[in-house]
């Protein structure tokens, strides 16, 4: 009987969930998410992308970007490049990843001649998968 007495429910003293470390956990999560967030590496050029509704998303690791601004300047890897140097730059990326998709971040006001010249360069190195990046704007 004396044994039974021991397991009697405690009358006084509530059981508590320790909440003092909760803030630490929350801050830890906060810091973790802040540090692991990867921001876009390339700044590129300021462009106003065309708008499109039928857009598709590509995995980031497959993409190589070419920026073309309204004045026709071309930028790859944050460097202004000449049309003729596109070939070697893209070829290097293509050798690392044969499934490469070249994404154009081109201003909608750029002359088609420049785009045509760039695409011609891409054809020369068989970089045939191309994406014209656009801002998604749903229709209707």
């Amino acid at each position, binding site marked *: 009987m004396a044994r039974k007495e021991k397991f009697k429910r405690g009358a006084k003293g509530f059981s508590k969930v320790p*909440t*003092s470390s*909760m*803030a630490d*956990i*929350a*801050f830890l*999560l*906060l810091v973790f*998410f*802040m540090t692991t*967030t990867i*921001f*876009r590496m390339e700044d590129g050029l300021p462009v106003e992308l*065309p708008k*499109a*509704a*039928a*857009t*598709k*998303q*590509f995995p*980031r690791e497959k*993409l190589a970007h070419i920026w*073309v601004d309204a004045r026709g300047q071309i930028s790859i890897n944050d460097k202004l490049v000449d049309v003729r140097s596109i070939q070697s730059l893209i070829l290097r990326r293509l050798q690392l990843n044969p499934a490469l*998709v070249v*994404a*154009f971040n*081109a*201003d*909608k*006001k*750029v*002359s*088609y*001649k*420049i*785009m*045509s010249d760039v*695409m011609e360069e*891409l*054809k*020369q190195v*068989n*970089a*045939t*998968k*191309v*994406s*014209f*990046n*656009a*801002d*998604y704007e749903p*229709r209707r």
Partner: protein
Amino acid sequence: MKIRKKGKGEPEIPNASMSDVAFLLLIFFLVTTIFNVEKGLDIVLPNLGTSPKRIAKQNLCEIKIAASGRVTVDGVETAVRGLEDVIRRRLIENDKTICVIETHPASYYGIMVDVLDELKLAEATKITLRTGGGG
């Protein structure tokens, strides 16, 4: 006498709501973070090895963009917004239709993307880009 300092009881900072504040910040950042999702219209360019093919005239749908930005489908002037229906109808009539977008070099790239978007909306799969005019 009334404003005498209290002798007993240490001052405490209430830390019970600290976790609430931290979680609030966490949720705020989670919600407001915009991930850079890139979206685009994809197309496969012909490579060097591809020799030009002859396409039967009835399977061809020629969309021309003039330097002025006017868009014609097989010679008939069409509004860009109306292209989707035109192409969709063409594809129902003949599912072997190959769409050729011929853009004048002096035209804007944005117009070509608008046209390409319409073709994609119309679920056209065979699309070729061509540079027209003096190009």
